[in-house]
């Protein structure tokens, strides 16, 4: 079996059994990256040298019995808003084009403690603001299923890299759907954990009350194992939660008998693509046949989640991104007149259009005279949304929803109308507002051959239920790689080879 198409756990097992070395695993991923990156552009930074050095070190650790866990020696790609010591961390922005953190994010450190090997940093919408990875300063990432389409976002690079077999798993971050939506578009599995489960230390903040780090992989088991490795209580993050129930791999059980599944009617009405709807309801049937108890219900307040989300996320972003002023790190404008103008010029030149749009909206809703009407109103709405979920979870174990209203849109079609793009977040943002865990699993494809993902939502701290349901479904449907598109990728790689004059 090809190293690059193995899951993280398979690869880790072979490394532990000395069938493969950590160095061979890293080399295989790096070769694959070199072959497909001209088409996919899933990475901002490929740290070949660092990865190979680290792989040698980890292999020694494995040989010496220091690393014994399931992820020892397994390559991983990390979203570019997670700090990696000494390795560029750009957040997809010109603003941080030269930023090399002097420390690593806690989630990355946890992976390193487990013996994983970071091979590079994945592309993303600038500061995680976007749903297509097209707002990146470093060019759009392409969907491995069809390079004419977006991979989703903002963790589009992580999801595309995993789907294209450039790495067995990756870390992403999810503020309003940024792991679950691109996982759906790329046909991979991604988890947004309960808020507070994974430390945000070293995650460059976008909407602090909503941001969570999570895994992206090609199997539910991989995601559970990675989540187990990265979840930790961290004193450096005051919102980090000490969880006793972090045995996520214990939930990998093929059994959903008696599980109560709620189908929010409001999520399956107008605006949802017919094919996406059919694929998801088909998957729900599969779970029902396995013994789950399925019932429709009214979740309510669905239409208020997006406006509340954009007020809260933009408000927090305007505050969080005030640190980028050209003084301590990152870009500084070349021409300016005095200190104040330096701040302004630096930010105006360093940020892209979408980031500016959200900073301005956020500054406005927090400004005197509008704070109550917009910001506090949104926080009150959030309280009501949380209440709606609380009453839903009094009746159901999990909620099934789409991850997005459509499959991946074509490149270049989304940024023209930002409001329309925001509306695509309808099924994901309320999960962040309520702090809930969610997982996306691939359930099929549309007529164009683009993946459809199903989102399973759990109550706070009920990751085990969504993991169990996702795993049970996965047993009925083998993971499908964009294999048919491997020819397409190779062909497109050839094209790009010609076009760029032998790159």
């Amino acid at each position, binding site marked *: 079996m090809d190293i690059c198409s193995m899951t993280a756990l398979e690869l880790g097992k072979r490394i532990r059994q000395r069938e493969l070395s950590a160095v061979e695993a890293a080399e295989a991923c790096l070769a694959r990256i070199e072959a497909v990156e001209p088409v996919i552009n899933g990475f901002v930074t490929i740290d070949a040298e660092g990865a190979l050095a680290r792989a040698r070190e980890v292999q020694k650790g494995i040989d010496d019995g220091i690393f014994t866990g399931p992820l020892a020696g397994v390559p991983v790609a990390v979203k570019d808003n997670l700090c990696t010591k000494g390795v560029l961390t750009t957040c997809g922005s010109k603003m941080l084009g030269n930023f090399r953190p002097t420390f690593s994010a806690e989630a990355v450190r946890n992976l390193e403690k487990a013996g994983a090997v970071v091979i590079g940093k994945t592309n993303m919408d600038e500061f995680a603001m976007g749903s297509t990875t097209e707002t990146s300063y470093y060019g759009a990432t392409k969907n491995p299923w069809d390079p004419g389409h977006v991979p989703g976002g903002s963790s589009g690079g992580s999801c595309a890299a995993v789907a294209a077999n450039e790495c067995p798993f990756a870390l992403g971050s999810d503020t309003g759907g940024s792991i679950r939506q691109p996982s759906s578009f790329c046909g991979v599995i991604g988890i947004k954990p309960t808020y507070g489960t994974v430390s945000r230390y070293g995650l460059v903040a976008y909407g602090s009350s909503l941001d969570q780090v999570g895994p992206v992989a090609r199997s539910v088991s991989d995601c559970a194992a990675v989540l187990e490795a990265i979840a930790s209580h961290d004193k450096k993050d005051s919102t980090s939660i000490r969880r006793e129930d972090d045995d996520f791999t214990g939930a990998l059980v093929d059994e959903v008998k008696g599980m109560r599944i709620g189908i929010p009617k409001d999520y399956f009405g107008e605006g949802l693509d017919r094919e996406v709807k059919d694929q998801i309801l088909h998957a729900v049937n599969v779970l029902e046949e396995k013994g789950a108890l399925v019932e429709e219900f009214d979740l309510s307040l669905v239409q*208020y989640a997006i406006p509340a989300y*954009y*007020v809260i996320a933009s408000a927090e972003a305007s505050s969080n991104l005030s640190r980028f002023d050209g003084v*301590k790190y990152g870009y500084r404008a070349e021409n300016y007149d005095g200190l104040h103008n330096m701040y302004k010029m630096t*930010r*105006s030149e360093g940020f892209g259009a979408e980031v500016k749009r959200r900073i301005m909206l956020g500054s406005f809703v927090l400004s005197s005279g509008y704070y109550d009407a917009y910001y506090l109103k949104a926080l009150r709405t959030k309280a009501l949304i949380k209440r709606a979920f609380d009453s839903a979870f009094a009746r159901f174990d999990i909620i099934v929803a789409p991850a997005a209203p459509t499959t991946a849109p074509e490149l270049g079609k989304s940024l023209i109308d930002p409001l329309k793009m925001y509306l695509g977040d309808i099924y994901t943002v309320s999960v962040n507002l*309520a702090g809930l865990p969610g997982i996306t699993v691939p359930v099929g494809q549309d007529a164009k051959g683009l993946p459809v993902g199903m989102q399973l939502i759990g109550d706070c701290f009920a990751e085990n239920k969504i993991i169990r349901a996702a795993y049970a479904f996965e047993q009925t449907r083998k993971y499908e790689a964009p294999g048919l598109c491997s020819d397409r990728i190779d062909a497109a790689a050839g094209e790009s080879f010609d076009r760029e004059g032998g790159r």
Partner: protein
Amino acid sequence: MANKISDETIEYVGILAKLELSCEEKENAKSDMEKMLDYIDTLNELDTAGIKPMSHVFPVNNVFREDIVRDGDGSADALANAPLAKDQGFKVPKTIG
């Protein structure tokens, strides 16, 4: 279109956001913000009287710890990414005239 953003408001937002906007950017920002605020105004359909604003889903408390000196970022590390540094400090344009 209920919301109308005036030139003064955009100017003010530019000051708050510390952004220098070109004329074109200002015009775009005005229409973008008007559209967004019209959309956000749908929240007014909701009766939220008596609902406490929820900033965090879980109670967020101050996390206290003992005040113990640790080896934090040394000055070399802290300055490693500085666009300009001088004498163990961040160098910026003159701040007081």
